[in-house]
């Protein structure tokens, strides 16, 4: 866990105590992807799957992480629920919200137990060229920095009077102009950092055709059971009456 300069704590990304932490990331990615297909199920089966998936996350000690992800979209869920109930019916509102809840929680399993290095390796094993796999994992690694940089820019602009703190909705709307004072420095800083990283990577032989990975993924029998179990549960829900 890192503490940023303003004292806000960054989100804990990796759950080391989860039994899935040591599982093969390919198995975890498979489970997450297959689970995301369940959104096509009708409401009753979807509800059963959500309960099963929540039990699985509880066993994997990942339920608080998933709950946090869902909490982040609470306002979207609330608005959709009210609109769907009002314009269509309650069943439809429940179905749409259940689907969103499932989609937002389903990849917690993968991202809360997989390091960016493992993500890069997984993508390489899935035949994605190394340069893209590396760039994607680096992008994930840098997500936390964006939060810090955005806060730093906001404070710097606030201190020179270029943006104003307010709680009034009307004034907030009139301050859309402030966005330019925030987005231009954000783009500049992100571009600069991306370029610095590119230079550093090339200066350490990033484009070498002789690269040989140090780490390897190994698919154990436990990973096989996990993938098979997930497939069976989802298969049952999809095809059995």
């Amino acid at each position: 866990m890192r503490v940023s300069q303003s004292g806000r704590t960054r989100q804990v990304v990796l759950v080391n105590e989860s039994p899935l932490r040591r599982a093969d990331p390919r198995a975890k990615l498979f489970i997450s992807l297959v689970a995301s297909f369940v959104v096509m199920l009708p409401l009753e089966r979807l509800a059963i799957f959500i309960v099963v998936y929540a039990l699985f996350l509880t066993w994997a000690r990942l339920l608080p992480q998933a709950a946090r992800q869902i909490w982040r979209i609470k306002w979207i869920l609330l608005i959709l629920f009210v609109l769907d109930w009002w314009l269509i019916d309650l069943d439809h509102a429940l179905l749409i919200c259940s689907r969103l809840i499932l989609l937002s929680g389903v990849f917690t399993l993968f991202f809360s137990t997989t390091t960016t290095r493992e993500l890069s390796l997984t993508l390489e094993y899935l035949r994605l060229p190394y340069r893209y796999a590396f760039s994607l994992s680096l992008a994930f690694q840098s997500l936390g920095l964006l939060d810090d940089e955005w806060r730093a820019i906001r404070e710097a602009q606030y201190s020179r009077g270029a943006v104003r703190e307010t709680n009034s909705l009307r004034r907030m709307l009139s301050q859309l102009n402030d966005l330019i004072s925030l987005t231009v420095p954000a783009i500049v800083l992100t571009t600069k950092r991306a370029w610095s990283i590119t230079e550093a990577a090339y200066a350490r032989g990033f484009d070498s055709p002789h690269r040989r990975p140090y780490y390897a993924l190994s698919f154990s029998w436990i990973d096989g059971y996990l993938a098979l179990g997930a497939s069976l549960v989802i298969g049952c829900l999809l095809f059995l009456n």
Partner: protein
Amino acid sequence: MLRTNQVSFRYPQNGHGLSPFSLQISPAKLTLVTGSSGSGKSTLARCLMGLIPHLYNGEMTGEVWLDGERTADLSMWQLAQKSGMVFQNPSAQMLAPTVEDEIIFGLENLGLERSEISERLERYLTQFDLAEMRSRSPLTLSGGEQQKLALAAVVARQPQALILDEPLSMLDTTAALALIGYLEEQVDDGKAVAIFEHRAEYLAGVEGVNLLDLNGTPAPEITSIEGLNLHPRRKFSLEIEGVTVAFGDHTPLKNLSLSLPGGQMVAIVGRNGVGKTTLLRVITGLQKHSGDVKISSPAGTAAPDLGMVFQNPDLQLFNSSVREEILYRIPDPDLVHYAALLDALGLRAYEATPPLLLSEGEKKRLALALVLMRKPRHGVLLDEPSLGQDSHHKAILVGLLRLLADAGQLVVITTHDLPLASQADRLILLGGEGVIADGEPAEVFTDAHAWGKAGIKLPGWFTDQHLGADV
């Protein structure tokens, strides 16, 4: 080993770059390349590494030779096998999720066997004292540790030449001296080491340094701030009473109390993480804290109104010209004050230039202009103002800050730059437990016990130049 033959380069965006320059960098030798801001030090370093012309578009003339081959004829990975580069910003060159992965990244690219990678990993983690932090994220390390890691990651690839672009500029004194120690070991190992650096004084004690100078355009002089419409001189003092700031388990400021009278230039010095920047943020109201911060004057007490100049000027610049940037959201701007600011900060020639095309030194001066245009009533706070500035720009900055202090304003700077701190009226040495020493710089610098307690080693060249035989 490495040589250039009248190499020059112009960036297409602004036409800046490097004028024709020839140099030779030999094995088992440390070459120091100095030069003012904008003289092309970083550009020359990129030419030597081959990043120019491989990653940069622009107009290049002349040639760079590495071990008898033209760098333009080799690909980047071939160049990276023979030479390695460490960059100015420690955190912006961290590529991997852990310290050991940072070293492994470069070794994988050499196509080494797994056993060879393991062997080198252990060897260089030990050599650079990084073994204990091997599983940590590089982004959680201090600037000094990050720079050490960047050097270890490059050295582990065993290149014949090392190129370092201002590696000391963001480090505190202790970390800078440690890094130089590691570089001396590399020279003893027979490597050709080229350092492009403003803070040349740190290499004064290193034997056999080959010194080269890239001349740049001298920066303008500031002689007065006539025309600057500052608030009338009134006696006041900034009172900081019992301030505590806690970030989870970490408490950078604990029950801190200070009284800072107007009309003074105050330097705050301390190792990374002791709360220097946090203190400035508390004073400006950006940081939540317990305790009191107020202005006390014969007329009563008031909230402080001090402008803050941030470490990174890019956080604030977004307009399409220097003029628009300075005047942004200033109702009824005082144009006499504006014109005086342009002259005082040497920005007159750049009035119509987009701020993002300015050099780092110019951007820093522009950031100060933004703050002074708002006419803060009580003064200015500057976070690491000399970072990335050459000695000439620093002299200009100090001159201006001195004039502001003489005009009755309070000027507070945080800095790792000891010569800059020595020019303040008052020096506050911060440590983990709060204020370790507070007084006139000459007095504080002679308190060896205090510096030991703060974990800062005063370099020999500094004590020789500034303190004579007192220490």
